[in-house]
């Protein structure tokens, strides 16, 4: 306590805590106490979200608009120059925020829907269903997911829908493990038993009794999963088997402009161009990691050990 002992009143302090805070005040208080890294992370995420939503308004040119000069240098007309067939890189970066991040968010949501639902079901059921799902997940996790994704993409072909479904299913295994592990501790609680005796269905028990009690670890996992999914999609697109052109996407943009790096000695700006989309990916991952770190500290009091 830093208060002056002369004017300090215990009643005043206790009294202040007695008034019920609205959600909004609580959020504001938390934000005020947040460390610099978390604030940095949140502002980055906010900026990305704004850019993604208002992409068509912010971008000076269209996503696939082709200009006559390929590999144009940085200028006032083309802020980051143009790419190998003459598309404005700055505009494609802005549209990339919408495509790359949007697809990653959709994939993570789907992974949580599948993994979360099955994990809860396994935790409640605890019989053959649990055994079956857990063993399946064991096998799926025994293969590196990038390799698995490559096999599946070669069978089904690289479309955005396939990409989302494949990555979501592969990543839902980790969500399943976590959900099951935390939910098992909640399932044995008396109030869950009471709900069962009341005759509630499995859907109600999952949604209303267990889910609210396992939210904090799941929210943190959502952030981390998003990073993994985002990096996986970026890697696949970079390899040329993920998001396909002409859709603007950061991973494939890195590859398309990679040869410019050879000219860094003569024109540093040109050499930096392929790194721009890559750093856009890295910046968002770092930002999300910072926020997740803060959230974990806040909800569980654990530091990074």
């Amino acid at each position, binding site marked *: 306590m830093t208060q002056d002992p002369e004017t300090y009143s215990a009643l005043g302090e206790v009294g202040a805590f007695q008034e019920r805070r609205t959600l909004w005040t609580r959020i504001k208080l938390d934000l005020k106490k947040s460390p610099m890294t978390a604030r940095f992370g949140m502002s980055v995420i906010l900026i990305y979200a704004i850019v993604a939503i208002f992409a068509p308004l912010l971008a000076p040119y269209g996503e696939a608009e082709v200009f006559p000069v390929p590999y144009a240098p940085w200028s006032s007309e083309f802020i980051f120059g143009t790419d190998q067939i003459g598309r404005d890189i700055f505009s494609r970066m802005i549209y990339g925020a919408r495509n790359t991040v949007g697809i990653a968010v959709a994939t993570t949501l789907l992974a949580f829907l599948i993994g979360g639902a099955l994990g809860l079901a396994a935790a409640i059921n605890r019989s053959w269903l649990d055994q079956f799902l857990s063993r399946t997940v064991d096998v799926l996790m025994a293969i590196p997911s990038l390799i698995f994704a490559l096999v599946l993409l*070669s*069978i089904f072909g690289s479309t955005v829908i396939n990409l989302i479904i494949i990555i979501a299913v592969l990543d839902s295994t980790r969500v399943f493990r976590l959900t099951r592990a935390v939910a098992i501790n909640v399932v044995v609680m008396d109030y869950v038993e009471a709900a069962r005796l009341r005759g509630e269905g499995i859907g109600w028990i999952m949604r209303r009794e267990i889910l609210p009690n396992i939210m904090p670890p799941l929210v943190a996992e959502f952030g981390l999963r998003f990073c993994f999914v985002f990096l996986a999609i970026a890697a696949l697109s970079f390899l040329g*088997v993920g998001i396909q052109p002409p859709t603007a996407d950061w991973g494939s943009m890195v590859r398309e402009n990679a040869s410019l*790096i050879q000219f860094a000695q003569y024109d540093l700006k040109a050499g930096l161009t*392929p790194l721009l989309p890559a750093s856009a990916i890295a910046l968002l991952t770092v930002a999300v990691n910072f926020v997740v770190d803060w959230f974990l500290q806040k909800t569980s009091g654990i530091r990074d050990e």
Partner: protein
Amino acid sequence: MHPVFRTVLERLGLGLATLFIVSIIIFSAIEMLPGDFGEAVLGQAATKETVAAFRRELGLDEPAYMRYAQWIGNVVQGDLGTSFSGRNASGIDRSRPVVDLIAPRLWNTLFLASMTAIIAVPIALALGITSALYRNSIYDRTVNTATLTTISFPEFFVAYILILLLASLWPVFPSLANVDAATPLAERMFKAALPAMTLTLVIVAHMMRMTRAAIINLLASPYIQMARLSGASQTEVIIKHALPNAWAPIATVIAFNLAYLVVGVVVVEVVFVYPGVGQLMVDAVTSRDIPVVQGCALIFAMTYILLNLTADIIGIITNPRLLHPK
């Protein structure tokens, strides 16, 4: 039977079972292909006869379990089938056996992976142990922040930063790692320097954080405190008391990260045009050359499972509590 022996046998059995199921999954890749892929492989101009011959060669007129038995039998004998590429509508077959495609590249990939491991493992262990010892010092925090940042970076970002700095601005190393079978060892290492550095940066971060966590976990246990209270010096505590128990987690960390290397290698090989299995697999995925994809996936999955199995077994046989049961 000694309990350790039994546990090891159990794990081996489990590992074999996993390998079996994984091989079934990879085998079914060809099963799940859309019906008209014969035309897709052979081209639009393929005649009915060539398509039929192609289907017969793949044995699509036999039941799946028969084909699996045949396939796995061939795989065990080192025959991974024939590549789809090089076939065309006229029926002239210029395709090559998958093994011939993979074998020279596998050696390249193993070379890159072991070169990385030899550099990365000592660095990561040293960083991990020292940062656990000087926990919460400025040194620890710096290392921690640096590694957290590296983990968040995509591999190709790290790779291109290295290319920009060490190949383009200050041309120390070549940015293309185009080695072949005739390249002498020294030149090979020189050309593979940048890919190895990229992989090192990525896995050192993971390994260092996991080693640190494992040691910190251990240093908090009561028997270490007891040793400290009985007057043992810091080095004595670490070497005599902590390390015997730390081998298991450290071995797990190393094997886990070598397994991670298996995946990381794919992206890095593509960036540096390094002729390894990863690049072959990506090319095969792009051209939907299923037999090659299957062969590469089988090799990657096998390495991954075997490394994790090794970690498990090392963890079991170095565990003092299992070695000296009550």
